[in-house]
């Protein structure tokens, strides 16, 4: 049952990936500027320029360019970075692990801490705690990452000197970026967990669970938690893509290597193949996240499993 559901979901990803690839390809061409301008030495002639354009195939019809690009993608051929003059695949392979470590840790941080805080605030219905949680959630959902990053750097790195200001050396350099990216996630997950738990508590069947003589703790962990997890899993799954995307600016602020830094640099230089590859990676992460979320939900809820995908 769950395998069939997964397969159906995978099939649905095919048209989605196709549309995404078209959008990514087009967006890059709609950007003003040109990578060739970055390659040309000062004083080059228009002939030099035309030669370079032809060399990278940029003079051909857009549709042809798209199919050449997507064809290469299918063969795992990401092409050559125009400005950085290296295989795009190498660049991605070099930067991806940094992003995955950072994103993975931020995801872990926001899910565990968020769910714990959300559960506590749903059970301990204390007015002071409630107000604190609401303030925290509001802050967490509104403070932009790059600004928080700067504040954290100023406080913990510059004033206290606990963590390095930037770079990617050792676990210490991970703490602040993980906190920055995870903060918004913690708030979001805490809010969703809290609301979902409170909603679950109001369900009719909870009365009957109490009437069976089960203890409140058993009811919470065996019955309410699985219900609360359904929306939380959805949020977390969407968060996978968001964390990688959100890491873009944070990586840049902390001067960490990673897909985000690579993307920003490539954007600045209009390095089309690199930008396309990075965007494709992020889009892939979002799609995978959604897929994982859907499958996880289906594995928890028999009603979804039976619904046609």
């Amino acid at each position, binding site marked *: 049952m769950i395998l069939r559901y997964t397969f159906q979901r995978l099939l649905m990803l095919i048209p989605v990936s196709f549309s995404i690839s078209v959008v990514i390809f087009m967006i890059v061409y709609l950007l003003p500027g040109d990578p060739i301008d970055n390659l040309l030495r000062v004083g080059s002639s228009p002939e030099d320029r035309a030669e370079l354009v032809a060399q990278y195939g940029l003079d051909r019809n857009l549709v042809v360019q798209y199919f050449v690009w997507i064809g290469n993608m299918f063969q795992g051929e990401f092409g050559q970075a125009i400005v950085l003059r290296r295989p795009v695949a190498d660049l991605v392979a070099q930067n991806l692990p940094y992003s995955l470590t950072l994103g993975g840790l931020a995801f872990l941080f926001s899910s565990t801490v968020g769910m714990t805080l959300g559960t506590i605030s749903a059970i301990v219905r204390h007015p002071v705690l409630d107000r604190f949680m609401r303030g925290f959630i509001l802050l967490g959902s509104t403070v932009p990452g790059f600004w928080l990053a700067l504040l954290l750097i100023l406080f913990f790195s510059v004033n206290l000197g606990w963590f390095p200001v930037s770079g990617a050396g050792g676990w210490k350099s991970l703490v602040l970026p993980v906190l920055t990216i995870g903060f918004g996630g913690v708030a979001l997950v805490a809010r969703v967990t809290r609301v979902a738990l409170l909603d679950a508590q109001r*369900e*009719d*069947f*909870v*009365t*009957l*669970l*109490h*009437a*069976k*003589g*089960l*203890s409140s703790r058993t009811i919470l962990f065996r*019955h309410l938690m*699985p*219900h609360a997890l359904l929306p939380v899993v959805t949020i977390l799954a969407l968060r996978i893509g968001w964390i990688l995307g959100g890491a873009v600016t944070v990586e840049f602020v902390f001067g960490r290597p990673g897909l985000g830094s690579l993307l920003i640099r490539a954007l600045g230089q209009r390095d089309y193949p690199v930008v396309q590859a990075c965007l494709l990676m992020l889009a892939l992460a979002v799609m995978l996240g959604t897929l994982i979320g859907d499958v996880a939900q289906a594995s*928890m*809820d*028999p*009603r979804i499993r039976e619904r046609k995908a």
Partner: protein
Amino acid sequence: MLSVRDLGVAFGAVQPLSGVSFAVGKGETLGIVGESGSGKSLTAMSVMGLLPLSGGRITGGKVEFDGQDLTKLSERAYRKLRGGRIGLITQNPMTSLDPLKKIGPQVDDVAKLHMGLSEQAARARTEEILGTLRIPEPALICERYPHQMSGGMKQRIVIAMALAADPDVLIADEPTTALDVTVQAQIIRLLDDLVKERDLALVLITHDMSVVAQTCDKVVVMYAGRAVEHGPVETIFDRPRHPYTQALIACIPRGLDEATRLTGIEGTVPTVVNYPSGCPFHPRCPRAEAICATDPPGFSVEGDSAAACHFAEVADAQPA
């Protein structure tokens, strides 16, 4: 077996329930009737000790079960009674089972918890009980999820859960309201049989006077959070002395001929925040007089039955 005396319930400053009394013994069915909002379900929740879930508390009176006052019981001790010795059947079977869990484990829980049975023994017991409730292929049903079953079937599962630990008292809060008419009759007959076979004390909460007439031995009529009349079913139906009871009985549809039109009771049930002074029924009562608006009536006892009406003694006479 179970007796409730002068029960009062409050949510904060509002007092939706006061002065409710009844008693039910083994092999006996007590009906609690009244319109929606008369405090029937609240009475059930009070007996189950589940008021705190919705933020209410018992402000007075006693709930006696087997010689002990449940209102003074600790939560831990109460848990042993719930599901163990007092079973509850709730109103809406569509939402009373956990949709994420299979039927089997949800029923097994009760025997495991209260009888200390192992996984296998509890499942064997579950299948046996489902069988006695005329559910076909119990083993198969145990592997199903709630959404794969019909309402009537789910209500049987809920009844099975209430029965799993062999309780002494069963409280059924509108067990048939959410079901099709044909299924309603089946469930009512099933409950009736269970009372006889297992010598249960059944508290049947309903708004349907005809159900009371069919199944109950005793009846308590509730209105606006108060018991207004109680007594043996025959007495109450033969000679109802409270105008509200009379009106309820008049509402039972009889036959299909043109002459007997469906009747209702004028007006609506007051909400908790605007319970009328004096007799709560006086604004809708055909025989109300000045005294009814000011003085709450006491119970006028006659044999086994009692009615809280200023004119209970002259109930048979037509109002002037």
